[in-house]
């Protein structure tokens, strides 16, 4: 596989994430029903279906990886399209948060047509910082940040130590999974779950869960052979 991330790779990543969200729609909604308002699965599914629609309209290949169409095109432009689509279709808190993630990743990626692992790690970091600025959440507040920050950090360290793209993305997915599971005992301090106070402890955060699916989708789409995401594991 290639050691860089292209526009085509981003398209494949988004398609893999859309599939994972669709497969885990009920699971995400059930997690949200416990500490939120029972709409995270359906909102993310609606948003990612719209993203896939956008990709189809842009003439992206149907399946990842195998197209001979070439990968030309700015990575940043596609990331921004994904962000704007999510902002206008997801709603709730997840819309502006995931929208900001991709919009700010798009800004950081700029006009480059392919990004090295190190550059990709910096792009993801810029997006995650955007999410933190928008939602004002810190690590440990029981939010998507608890999955995204460890994933970003794992990706950055993997890039520094010269690991392959596949290894780096799998490491990031594993870190996101760990961060997601670590939200279970936490008391929520942001979002609707914070109204529950102590009663929010003992539940896995739905936003951290969809963020893990996002990192897992990157590993799956760009690092073939990675294990698939399954609900409740």
């Amino acid at each position, binding site marked *: 596989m290639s050691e860089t991330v292209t526009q085509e790779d981003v398209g494949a990543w988004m398609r893999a994430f859309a599939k994972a969200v669709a497969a885990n729609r009920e699971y995400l909604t059930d997690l949200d029903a416990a500490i939120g*308002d029972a709409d995270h699965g359906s909102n993310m599914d609606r948003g990612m279906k719209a993203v896939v629609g956008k990709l189809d309209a842009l003439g992206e290949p149907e399946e990842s990886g195998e197209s001979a169409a070439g990968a030309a095109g700015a990575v940043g432009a596609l990331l921004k399209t994904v962000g704007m689509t999510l*902002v206008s279709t997801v*709603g*709730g808190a997840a*819309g502006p948060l995931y929208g900001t993630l991709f919009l700010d990743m798009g800004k950081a990626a700029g006009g480059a047509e392919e990004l090295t692992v190190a550059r990709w790690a910096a792009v993801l970091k810029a997006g995650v910082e955007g999410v933190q600025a928008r939602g004002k959440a810190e690590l440990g507040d029981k939010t998507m940040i608890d999955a995204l920050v460890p994933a970003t950090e794992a990706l950055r360290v993997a890039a520094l130590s010269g690991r392959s793209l596949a290894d780096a993305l799998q490491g990031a997915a594993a870190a996101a999974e760990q961060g997601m599971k670590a939200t279970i005992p936490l008391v929520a301090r*942001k979002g*609707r779950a914070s109204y529950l106070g102590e009663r929010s402890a003992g539940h896995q955060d739905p936003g951290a869960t969809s963020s893990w699916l996002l990192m897992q989708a990157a590993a799956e789409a760009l690092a073939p052979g990675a294990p698939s995401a399954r609900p409740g594991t």
Partner: protein
Amino acid sequence: MGAGMKKLINRPEDAVREALEGVATAHGDRLRVHSGPNYIVRADAPVRGKVALVSGGGSGHEPMHGGFVGLGMLDAACPGEVFTCPTPDQMLAATKAVDGGAGVLHIVKNYTGDVMNFEMAAELAQDEGIAVEPVVIDDDVAVKDSLYTAGRRGVGATVLAEKICGAAAEQRRPLAEVAGLCRKVNANARSMGVALTSCTVPMAGKPTFELGADEMEVGVGIHGEPGRERRALAPAHEIVEELASAILDDLPFTRGDEVLAFVNGMGGTPLMELYVVYNELHKLLGGRGISVTRNLVGSYITALDMAGCSITLLRLDDELTALWDAPVNTTGLRWGV
């Protein structure tokens, strides 16, 4: 449709769109309903020289907010999916559609998603040269307001703020003054609710939470979020005592205050029961030397099919009273015209 869900809908995913089509069909004389992005505006928008009021929120709380669009209240409402706040593109389009050159007030209920989406919309509108002032409503005393929560939720005071600010805008008061009034209403209003049943989101197909046949959730939110405590169902006078005490102690309201008492149904409670609650509330307030000089009884900010009610008290002065009494002509509230 999920097993056990009984609703007058076709497909769950079509319910919001079809309801908006119904609103357009029923009230085309007074409202225009725009789809893609979805928003409802008064038929005569934009009104030149008048501050425009835009609000919005998830669907499932009807008549709020679409039912409050019209003369003397909102200029536009942005309905989201059920219990999901609308998106910035809707708010931006609505803001542009109603801007009459005097600026736009965004009335935002304090929920994380609503605040962030309205924030993005205000940034976009300001980029286009429209003056936008957002005011966040957070009147629910059931929720502790601290650094460690998202803050109090916005509930019943939203309806009162939309009415009072709408009247002020009709008098051609400037944006800063209308926004100031909105903050004044929020600062002088407190609310708390109780649920006797859960509600069922159409797309979820099952009740949002489980509540035993003999239980109630005290301090419930308008999306079925849990409140302060779950306990055994009690007679109306005890429930009113608990809700009203929490509200009165919080502001605090004191002997000699004049208030607007708002008893609101959550969607699944008969008006008869709301009047039982109002009767208890009126007696209790009288006993504490607080006089109810205005009232509102009915289902105005609902949570789909949830049974239960909320109480909102607003401390009135002459200015707020006069604005409350001013003419309003919406599908949800109408008097003086």
